[in-house]
């Protein structure tokens, strides 16, 4: 799933995939090989494309603060589901849209089901990765707009929630 990292008003799409001995960072239309060489609380020793990188970091809610290469950086982390939640109905976070093209693997909560934030609603497969779309807040599943096995395009409505009456 693509996460968003926002800095100075610009959101970068990022995700990690596993590769032997480390991770592959997919970001900004590029890839980089990341090897984790050590970590303690708030500290990472990485090699990024072979270059050592010592990182100090702190997380507060959706904010992440970093220090590396002698500079400070700050991002707001947009979780995939929240990020693509639609506001078109006028209700904030009323619906989740597909973050990228894919296929519906399984539907875990049907229309009318009461869900708590974090409950699984459906599982999708995109870019060969399975991702669980979870309830982003407490509510009632108003509708699941896709069926198992169906394919969808980026931006398609997947599921909408209404507030618990």
């Amino acid at each position, binding site marked *: 799933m693509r996460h968003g990292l926002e800095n100075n008003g610009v959101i970068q799409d990022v995700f990690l995939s*596993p590769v*032997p001995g480390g991770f592959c960072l997919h970001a*900004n239309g590029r890839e980089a090989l*990341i090897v984790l060489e050590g970590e303690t609380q708030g500290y990472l020793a990485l090699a*990024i494309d072979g270059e050592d990188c010592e990182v100090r970091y702190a997380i507060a809610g959706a904010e*992440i603060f970093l220090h590396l*290469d002698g500079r*400070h950086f700050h991002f707001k982390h947009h979780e995939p589901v929240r990020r693509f939640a639609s506001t078109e109905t006028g209700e904030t976070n009323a619906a989740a849209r597909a973050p990228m093209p894919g296929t519906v693997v399984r539907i875990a909560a049907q229309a009318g089901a009461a869900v708590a934030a974090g409950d699984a609603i459906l599982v999708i497969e995109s870019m060969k*990765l399975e991702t669980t779309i979870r309830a982003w807040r407490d509510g009632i599943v108003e509708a699941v707009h896709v069926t198992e096995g169906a394919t969808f395009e980026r931006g398609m409505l997947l599921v909408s929630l209404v507030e618990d009456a």
Partner: protein
Amino acid sequence: MSHAIRTLLIANRGEIAVRIIRTAQRLGIGTVLVCHELDLGSPASAMADEIVLLEGRTGVAAYLDAAQIIAAAQKTGADAIHPGYGFLSENAAFARAVTDAGLIFVGPTADMIDLMGDKVRARAFAEKHGVPVAPSAIEDDDPVNFVAKARALGAPLLVKPSAGGGGKGMRIVRDLAKLDEEITQARSEGARYFGDGRLYVERFVEEPRHIEVQVFGDGKGNVIHLGERECSAQRRFQKIIEETPSPILTPALRERICQAAVDLARAAHYANAGTVEFIYGRDQFYFLEMNTRLQVEHPVTEEVTGLDLVEWQLRIASGAGLPLQQSEIRTDGHAIELRIYAESPSRGFLPTTGPLLVFDPPEGEGIRVDTGFGQGQRVTSAFDPMLAKLIVSAPNRSAAIERACEALREFVILGCETNVEFLGALAHSAAFRAGEVHTGFIDAHPELAQLPVLDGEVLMRVLGAASMALPSLREEAEEIPAMHAMMGGWRN
């Protein structure tokens, strides 16, 4: 006549409270800290022997409450009060009340604070004692001929409200044809900001440099100086980098400017620590004002002289006289102070707030950090947003600048935006390294305050670091079905 101070009350907070307590403890003097509840848990409050809680509608109001502070000293048996800088440090009524209560005020006399606090009187005093002042015209002195006198000074001119401060209503006039118009506007701004439209005009020094001299007096006419500091790197009229020695002064000029400061303080029979500020430009220097307290930037003087200025203040306040004579003062090397502020340089240096999730100052040879903050504290808008002073020293200026840039790169502050990178960019700039920064430089170079564009390799490194630090991103990668990992393995 000497009265050794046994218990010292510190009427301040933050880094300067820490600074004063440290010296008092080294000298075996007991410490009482007055403290607003917002500051409970601060490093200063943890160091003091005793704390007296100050009531106050706001934190600032509490530290300005003279009666409460003097009562705290009496209650705890403190025999002296150190006001630090800011707050009540240049309040003559406070100094008088402290003395009237039978306590020692660590600073000059109330009359001296009164004299130097009145810009027009201080300027006249300086002029009378042969200290150069900028050619000027003062409306109060001669209202009828004021504009003609101002015009006769010649351009460029600086027009200031007599009652002013903080740069409000100040105008630079380079074309004398516009003088009448500028005077009209300055008068209306002065009336609006200060309820007083009287003006003051002086010759404006182009690309001015701020040079100040640290002096100490015993109150009996004995005065020595501890050299100069240059504080020309300023934003919004506030110093952000200070250093000693000044890169612009020749030995002959240094001697003249330091002697002028000593002459002024000696004429005043000045007691305790003071700083005489000058504007310097085109081989001329003019008296600006005298600050009757310890300055924020005193540590650079300490680093090159090896002296403890707070110790000197306490010894003089207790009547022990000047610890050394002028001929015994030696300076060695170069020192630079960089003020770390919670602020956003790219957004006009607006103050920022936030939790200090990580606060990890650099350490090492030639590195000193004076701070009143600790990790886990929150930066709020209740007080001044200065987080720390980084003071570096080295055998020469270029080595000190190198050390400053390196130490700034190692200063980790997470959770609140600061000016650390901006200070690094400024210290590293060609103008600063060449010793050419004047007081208008930062305002004239807004590009220094812009954040470098995040792209290319740097962007990938930062996004990689953030992705690895965020648990959900890494967990998702680790949860990816084994097949993908196996496929990767098969290819090997």
